[in-house]
């Protein structure tokens, strides 16, 4: 309980750090929403007027504390660029990213764990190389290339799946595979290396001595002991997935958080970027806390920490 409170405190500190960091970065980088909004039809008078109406002419501390005050009262502000409340934009976009990410994670875990186990069990066997090859293919090709090939194959060649996201579930399969394949490789290799370490451990011999078959020994003991590292990686993956979503969402026209964040950075939309980043940071923090809790449950030794 005390541990959890401390973690919460840590999360709050991290969030404040994130907000401050983004504030400073957006302050440093050139360009502002007013110039992007006016684009080619620009005049000095309009730049000045828009800058003022967005409050961008205020000083950095003034903007920062104004924003923090809003946050404390639950007001995430309005997007400068899209002229809509940030919270409603995020809540509108998040479900799409959630669906995509869940599906991608499911795909990557299934492929990753399966190939990791097979690699470890049939070490140096040709199956080992085959599975490692498949899993590693995902980490060796840029996401957008994987996406394009999937689109080419499943849409253009075989007319099996929709080209871009159209609101239906089937149109999420290709983006999820494109996104998930990338991290399947990471899951697989960590799984494999952890498992192999575990397989060398004396308790496996004990287990075998006890009459368990080799495979059962792997599944029953090694898998459980390798779990903490894999779960930690999965929590880390969440952030990677959200990064990958930026590209995947734009290739497949998914109206998700990734695209929102991308637009926010591109247009220097401070409230929108802050909103999306705070949101993802919270997600990742929750993911990490969950991972730790699961790890603690699986491995009582960690409880002493």
């Amino acid at each position, binding site marked *: 309980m005390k541990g959890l409170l401390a973690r919460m405190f*840590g999360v709050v*500190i*991290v*969030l404040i*750090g*994130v907000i401050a*960091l*983004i504030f400073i*970065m*957006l302050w*440093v*980088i*050139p*360009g502002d929403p007013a110039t992007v909004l006016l684009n080619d039809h620009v005049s000095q008078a309009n730049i000045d007027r828009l800058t003022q109406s967005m409050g961008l002419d205020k000083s950095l501390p003034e903007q920062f504390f104004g924003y923090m005050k809003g946050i404390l009262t639950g007001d995430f502000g309005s997007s400068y660029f899209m002229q809509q409340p940030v919270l409603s934009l995020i809540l509108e976009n998040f479900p799409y990213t959630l669906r995509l990410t869940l599906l991608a994670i499911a795909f990557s875990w299934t492929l990753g764990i399966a190939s990791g186990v097979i690699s470890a069990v049939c070490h140096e066997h040709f199956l080992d190389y085959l599975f*490692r090859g498949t899993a*590693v*293919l995902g*980490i*060796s*090709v*840029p*996401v*957008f*290339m994987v996406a*394009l090939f999937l689109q*080419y194959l499943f849409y*253009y060649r075989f007319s099996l799946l929709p080209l871009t996201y159209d609101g239906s579930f089937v149109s999420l399969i290709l983006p999820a595979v494109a996104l998930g394949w*990338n991290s399947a490789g*990471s899951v697989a*290799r*960590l799984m*494999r*290396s952890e498992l*192999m*370490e575990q397989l*060398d*451990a004396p308790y496996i011999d004990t287990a075998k001595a006890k009459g368990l078959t080799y495979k059962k020994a792997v599944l029953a003991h090694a898998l459980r002991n390798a779990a903490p590292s894999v779960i*930690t990686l999965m929590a*880390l993956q969440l*952030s*990677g997935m*959200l*990064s*990958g*979503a*930026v*590209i995947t969402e734009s290739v497949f026209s998914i109206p998700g958080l*990734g695209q929102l*964040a*991308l637009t926010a*950075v591109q247009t220097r939309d401070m409230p929108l*970027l802050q909103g999306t*980043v705070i949101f*993802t*940071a919270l997600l*990742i*923090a929750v993911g*990490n806390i969950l991972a730790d809790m699961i790890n603690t449950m699986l491995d009582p*030794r960690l409880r002493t*920490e």
Partner: protein
Amino acid sequence: MKAERKRNTGQELFRACLHNKAALISGLIILLIILLSTFAPLFTHYDETGQDLMNRLMPPGNGHLFGTDELGRDVFTRILYGTRVSLLIALLPTALAAALGTALGICAASFRGATDFIIMRLADIMLSIPGMLFAMVVLYTLGGSLASVVISLILIEWGETARVVRSVTLKLRESEFVEASVSAGAGGLHVMIWHILPNLLPTIIVLFTLNIPASILSESALSFLGIGIQPPQVSLGLMTGASRQYLFQMPWLALAPAGMIMVIVLSFHFFGDALRDILDPGRRTA
């Protein structure tokens, strides 16, 4: 005495690599790629930026092994030169991030308390912002160039290493042999260098080799968004990104650099795995 032991370990490692098929093959491929790109001018008589507008988008053949690109430049030559940049992006930021992450991770685990708290919260902050977004902001600030790509990759990669190294170090400190050497009177630094670091190596190497593909792919994603390496400089990611339009009509344009990315990534991947097997402390002591 100690120096002697170190050299032996190095020789042992080298010999083990020679005996491990995967390590040998992937190591040789890496060596070959490094040589090819380093001595690029020996393998081609074209200039990587030399344009020939009359001969744009030529298919492979006619003196161009992989054809020509959208400005009539020789794709093979550009791959050789692009590999230089991509190898740099694969190794430099990854190594620096690994070093930084390891140092900070060990510090956090050793000193605990406030140091631990600050370092880990910093890592959390970096890990809380999706890497791609963070890299974009850094690149927008510094402008797209090789140096900015390297800096942004270091910034997004160190946190993960720090976090993993910290947790493994904590585990190791609890382990029997470290406790034994501490009770035998060994000092903190001694324990760190001779007991914890060697045992951390497999983890660090796995993370390092994991981050090599990640670095190359991040660069290509940034190039896809148009903010990574900028022309006339060339990288494999930039070439792949720029030729995605031609993927189905002129596949060689995107496939050649993408294939090279794959070869590099796979080589490092298998090399890293093999190295891990060799370095595995459990086996060595056995």
